[in-house]
């Protein structure tokens, strides 16, 4: 079920009502969350529910096994490790088969079998959200192994933790340390939290359905036949894709986090105004935070992180970015995108400047300085160049895109497909930028509100009208669903 569908508009109020009717019965409430989440997921394809259930059960059992073996035989560290690795391998095998097998088989065939791979390909359908819930389940067993959390005995709460529908298909990737305890204790309804959640959802819908989808109309057109257009059109499409992917994914995250608040659950922040970053290191602290911190905590730090020799730090950084790229999809373009960012990041981490900008830009001021503006623009442009790799269908297409873009950059102005579409993009992007700039130091990008109810409601209605009057009416799925 998509957030931007009629079905969800019916589903959410019904689930909300039943959920709070059950608020005095924790077990039933959690069981209802699981049932609603499975219905939400099964709306797409019920067969893959078995896969989620299997992953969940394995991680639940591995948590208990790790804990019991480490408490009954504390001196023997091999058993907990065995259970941990068994669960990791199992989860990664499932992920690998569904997501990466065909890609590596095709790459192998391209290299050694003259490209003919048809007889070894599986052509499996990629289960929606598999990368997200697999990582969430994995973090639980690793945290139990590390002793960061005690394993839960409440299997229903654990199922609710893995399958909680707002964040099941595209994150934020939650940690058991933060989300599981919320399912183990009774939730109480909070009016300010629920209202804030609805507000955040509204903002998410605006970013997805107006900003991102409007940009997509232009972007899809250009990326389909880049050679038909001049360089400035290609540059505009790259810039608009940069905005599209942010609006799409951060919009999804806002809807998910806001939706969870309606149920009294707090999810972690996933985006923190990444395009207001002054360098690439700051960008990566603000972009897809739940994934970058996952890689940091479970791969980068165990590899030694930045407390090892400089060449090793460089290697660790490279590995993390390549894996992060590959996580996004089974295509060399994602690996190249990861490598591109690693190359931008390496000079900063080797010179120790990667943590230079930890505060919010222009803190306590209305406007940034000229220097800050230049830094933000440069970071944004670097991100734009990277997103071309991400959006392209193949490395060859990306190279052709760059080459055509730079060689014909000054051959005329960008081609616009429709005046109305151009205005919608312009106005919605300006609204998004202004609002997010004003909220850059807040809990989320639509947190700060005027005191006057008239002004507040007026702005909400304006956003609703922009959604209803200017959305793209073809149903457009979220980009990150494919990951």
């Amino acid at each position, binding site marked *: 079920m998509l957030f931007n569908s009629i079905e969800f508009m019916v589903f959410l109020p019904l689930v909300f009502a039943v959920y709070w009717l059950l608020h005095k019965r924790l077990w039933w409430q959690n069981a209802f969350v699981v049932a609603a989440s499975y219905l939400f997921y099964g709306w797409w394809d019920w067969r893959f529910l078995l896969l989620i259930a299997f992953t969940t059960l394995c991680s639940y059992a591995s948590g208990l096994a790790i804990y019991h073996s480490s408490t009954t035989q504390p001196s023997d560290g091999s058993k907990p490790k065995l259970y941990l690795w068994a669960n990791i391998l199992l989860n990664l095998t499932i992920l690998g088969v569904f997501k990466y097998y065909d890609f590596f088989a095709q790459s192998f065939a391209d290299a050694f079998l003259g490209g003919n791979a048809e007889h070894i390909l599986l052509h499996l359908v990629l289960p929606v959200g598999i990368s997200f819930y697999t990582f969430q389940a994995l973090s639980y067993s690793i945290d139990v192994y590390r002793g960061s959390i005690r394993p839960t005995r409440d299997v229903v709460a654990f199922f609710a933790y893995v399958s909680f529908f707002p964040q099941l298909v595209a994150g934020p990737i939650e940690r058991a340390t933060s989300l599981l305890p919320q399912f183990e204790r009774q939730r109480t309804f909070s009016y300010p939290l*629920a209202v804030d959640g609805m507000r955040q959802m509204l903002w998410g819908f605006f970013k997805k359905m107006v900003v991102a989808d409007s940009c997509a109309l232009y972007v899809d057109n250009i990326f389909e036949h880049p050679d038909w257009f001049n360089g400035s059109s290609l540059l505009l499409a790259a810039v608009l894709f940069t905005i599209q992917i942010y609006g799409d994914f951060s919009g999804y995250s806002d809807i998910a986090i806001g939706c969870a608040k309606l149920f009294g659950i707090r999810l972690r922040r996933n985006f923190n105004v990444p395009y207001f970053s002054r360098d690439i290191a700051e960008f990566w602290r603000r972009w897809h935070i739940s994934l970058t911190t996952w890689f940091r905590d479970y791969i980068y730090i165990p590899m030694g992180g930045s407390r090892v020799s400089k060449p090793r730090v460089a290697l660790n950084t490279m590995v993390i970015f390549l894996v992060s790229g590959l996580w996004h999809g089974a295509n060399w373009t994602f690996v190249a995108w990861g490598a591109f960012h690693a190359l931008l990041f390496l000079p900063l981490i080797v010179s120790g400047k990667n943590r230079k900008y930890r505060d919010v830009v222009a803190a306590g001021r209305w406007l940034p300085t000229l220097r800050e503006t230049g830094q933000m623009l440069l970071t944004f442009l670097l991100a734009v160049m990277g997103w071309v790799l991400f959006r392209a269908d193949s490395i060859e297409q990306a190279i052709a895109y760059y080459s055509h873009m730079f060689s014909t950059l000054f051959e005329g102005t960008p081609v616009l497909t429709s005046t109305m*579409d151009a205005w*919608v993009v312009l106005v919605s992007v300006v609204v998004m930028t202004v609002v997010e700039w004003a909220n850059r130091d807040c809990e989320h990008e639509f947190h700060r509100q005027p005191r006057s109810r008239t002004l507040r409601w007026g702005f*909400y*209605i304006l956003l609703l009208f922009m959604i*209803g*009057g*200017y*959305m793209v*009416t073809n149903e457009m799925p979220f980009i990150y669903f494919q990951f």
Partner: protein
Amino acid sequence: MRRLIRNTILFALVAAVTYTLLLFVLGDWGWVRTARTEMGNRGFLNSRVKDIHNYHNVDVLFLGSSHSYRTFDTRFYRSEGISCFNLGSSNQTPVQTYVLLKAYLDSLNPKYVVFEVHPDIMKNDGVECAVDLLINTPITWEATKMAWQTGNMKVINTWLYSLYNQKVRHRLQHFTEDSIMDDAEYIPGGYVEINTKEFVRKRYSSHHLTIRPEQWQALQRCLALLKERDIPYMLVEVQDAYQLRSAFKNHEWFEAKMRTLGPYRYKLLPLVDTIHFCNSNHLFKPGIEIFNKDFVVDLKKELAQLK
């Protein structure tokens, strides 16, 4: 919780009123992307629906998309002694045909119905035709149901705007569509004559034909309506240019599906893409003439059986 419910209801009311007002104001200026606010277009549905009141108890009613109103030349059939009306409209899918049938079938009271079906139309979401119908024809209860069932914002906004346009401002009644637009001319009786040929050679990638479940169900509903009134019908597929037709991978499947619903006619005539076609999926004058001369023979046989 009570506070949330109370404020949500209050907000929903204020938002609904303000939204509607904004839609009316900005819609008048054509500033709403997801609403069609201009009446009239090259499909001439507006003229057709006004013209319909001049026709009662016709021999044949033609239904369908532009393949229908650009092919079944009502002048030719009249010259053959067959009284008829063409109720086709742009991209008309069975969902909209049902709305039109409910509104006009009884007044037209046809003896026979020719229902044009096309693979591209059967997989169409019907949004373009729905907004055309809502802005150019009087809003009925069936049209309202159809608008809300699509769940499409463009259709719902157009319905809302059109309601205001028709019930408050009476603009539909006072609007007169030009009978000639660019190269298209409305001919009384529902036919639209296109005077320019714009055939371009194109390579279509081969693809499988599909049928949307809601269109299939609507088609069945339309036919049930005809059966209720004992009106015999024929499903007709007008041939496309070879360059498009050859891209359909499973046309036999489509034919078989249509045959399950009743008499179905798909006859390939020896037509040449560059001579007989206006574009890939519409016949041009010489093609239309050949098609109608061939079709009228079958049609007369069907009508003869009724007497």
